[in-house]
């Protein structure tokens, strides 16, 4: 009776041990993909001599939100190539150890563990989205290696149950800042008294934005006449928009990503909804124009990290460099990826020694770092203090931009 079962269980354990060891990959199979062309890429930790600095890349390169991860990594690689071409950090070449977390939280945790315990990294960049980034923070605190995200905007990211997460940083403003800024813009600049919110209920990002827009708009004396929701990957919004059309409102707030927002704007305009449509940085992608069509993109305002109208030489240089390489305009994820890598490499350059603790201290001490997405300083909660831009669209092209300082 017990024969087979115990045998099995023993086999199970034995096997898992076997894989435990076999799963310890030979350096060739884990092949840290080095992005830079300068110099041969060392493939084992031993060769990480004093000449190279290793930075981990833990991004969503496949799976549900691969678009954000891939765009961020393009920006990161651009930055690293620039720094290496200019002689590296204090003469040391930067090498990227790149892994794909498949848009899975558990994989993000496992990869963070892997790069921190086996790959000798000094800091890890990514993941792009809040929940996956948060899945790596306990690992970072435990191994004393900082993790930095360029686009994890949820309020809770850098705040743990016992105060600030010591080894977690980000360079994007959080959702409450963005939602609040848009609500203020709606009440003060657009003189809106009533608003409808149509949010992506399957995204924590959209949820956070909606909550903060709601509370600030109401505090400014406005009323929210309706709050509707959709789910990511939806394509048919006619039913809900017909419902919204029956309401009286001055503006419609659409927290979400361009994939759906583009279709919503198109369908809303076709159904005769002419009120201004407001949004957040999820609007910022060249695809928005393709999805919605230029005719629908009038009276659109969204908060963003930077504006292409910005005459700041840093922004112009970045856009020009990106265009030269990829033939189209960059989106916010490209810019944030670029900035994150620059931000991390700047801190490594200022760190007193090449250890995780020293880099952490240098990151926390960052003041007035000139980034493409705005000059930023790191506050005591490891959030950036930086300006936000409200961009206005006319026929699908940016026509106004207003900078709001925190």
């Amino acid at each position, binding site marked *: 009776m017990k024969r087979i079962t115990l045998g099995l269980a023993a086999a199970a354990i034995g096997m898992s041990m076997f894989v435990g060891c076999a799963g310890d990959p030979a350096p060739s199979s884990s092949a840290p993909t080095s992005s830079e062309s300068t110099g041969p890429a060392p493939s084992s930790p031993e060769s990480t001599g004093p000449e190279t600095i290793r930075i981990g890349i833990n991004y969503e390169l*496949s*799976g*549900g939100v*691969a*678009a954000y991860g891939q765009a961020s990594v393009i920006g990161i690689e651009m930055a690293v190539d620039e720094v290496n071409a200019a002689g590296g950090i204090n003469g040391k070449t930067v090498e990227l150890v790149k892994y794909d977390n498949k848009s899975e939280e558990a994989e993000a945790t496992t990869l963070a563990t892997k790069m921190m315990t086996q790959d000798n990294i000094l800091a890890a960049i990514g993941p792009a989205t809040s929940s996956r980034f948060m899945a790596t923070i306990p690992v970072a605190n435990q191994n004393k290696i900082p993790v930095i995200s360029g686009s994890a905007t949820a309020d809770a990211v850098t705040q743990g149950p016992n105060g600030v997460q010591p080894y977690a940083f980000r360079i994007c403003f959080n959702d409450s800042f963005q939602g609040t800024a848009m609500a203020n813009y709606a009440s003060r600049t657009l003189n809106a008294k009533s608003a409808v919110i149509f949010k992506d*209920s*399957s995204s924590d990002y959209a949820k956070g934005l909606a909550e903060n827009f709601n509370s600030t708009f109401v505090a400014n004396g406005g009323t929210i006449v*309706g709050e*509707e*929701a*959709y*789910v990511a*990957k*939806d*394509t*048919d919004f*006619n*039913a*809900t928009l*017909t*419902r919204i*059309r*029956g309401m009286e409102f001055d503006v419609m707030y659409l927290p979400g990503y361009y*994939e759906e927002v*583009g*279709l919503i704007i*198109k369908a809303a305009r*076709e*159904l*005769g909804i002419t009120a201004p449509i407001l949004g957040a940085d999820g609007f910022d992608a060249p*695809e928005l124009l*393709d*999805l919605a*069509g230029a005719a629908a993109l009038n009276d659109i305002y969204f908060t963003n990290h930077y504006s292409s109208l910005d005459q700041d030489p840093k922004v112009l240089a970045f856009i020009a460099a990106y265009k030269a390489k990829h033939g189209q305009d960059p989106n916010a994820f490209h810019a944030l990826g670029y900035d994150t890598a620059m931000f991390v490499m700047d801190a490594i350059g200022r760190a007193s020694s090449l250890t995780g603790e020293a880099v952490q201290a240098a990151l926390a001490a960052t003041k007035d770092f000139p980034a493409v997405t705005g000059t930023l300083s790191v506050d005591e909660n490891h959030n950036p203090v930086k300006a936000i831009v409200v961009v206005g669209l006319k026929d699908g092209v940016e026509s106004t931009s207003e900078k709001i300082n925190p």
Partner: protein
Amino acid sequence: MEDVLQQLINGLSLGSIYALIALGYTMVYGILQLINFAHGDIYMIGAFVGYFCMSSLQLGFFESLLIAMVACSILGALIERIAYKPLRNSTRIALLITAIGVSLVLEYTMVYFVGAGVRSYPPLPEFMIGSFNFGGVIIKNLQILIVGISVTLMIALQLIVKKTKVGKAMRAVSQDAETARLMGINVDNIISVTFMLGSALAGAAGVLVGVYYNSINPLMGLMPGLKAFVAAVFGGIGLIPGALLGAYVVGSLETFVAATGNSMFRDAVVFAVLIAILIVKPTGLLGKNVKEKV
């Protein structure tokens, strides 16, 4: 009032698209008792074929629609020959697992080649843009086009099934494949034809969705495929009129749920209805109870 009418039109357009997909499902099920899980992905391939015809080859809408239908029917027949035919005598679970495998292969091969992001169709010809406004009720030209094309294709299908020799053979095979074989019908060929017809309709649905919603991606087939299956089961799987009825019911139901402000529960409601139907009347609204033969 105008909102109610508007919602009816919304439900009708959505239902037409589901109907085109559901017809393929129900035909294949009728003949093979197979839930062709990959059917939704054939619809996705149709959308992409139409996209490449209209953008890269600069073809017109109707040419692209036709090419997508032909391409999908070939693909459908190929899939049947390669993946399903060797399993003619295995268990239904084995068939269903294969279908899921085919679905994954189609989806992620496309992801590999075109990326997971959304694409939008090229600008449409003049006659497809614009809309009529009847006292606040807005009917888009595209909606008329979609309902029109769907109904035309469904009538054509009905004629094929009811009036032609092939159609007669299809009905014979779906009633009793063994006896049909004894009567001199080439069952394998008839099954291929069924797959081709069903896939062509799915391909047409793909192109129509592409121009209507203006957004396609490699994973777009999963949910509409499942919804269309729900529609087919709702009306009585294996029955062509059942699939039509089910599709319009599901389309209206989704519109109703969203119109009452609960769109985040839309998918849950559709699946709950499916489970309820399966429990109360597994043969669907129009289905007859058939005793299982031992």
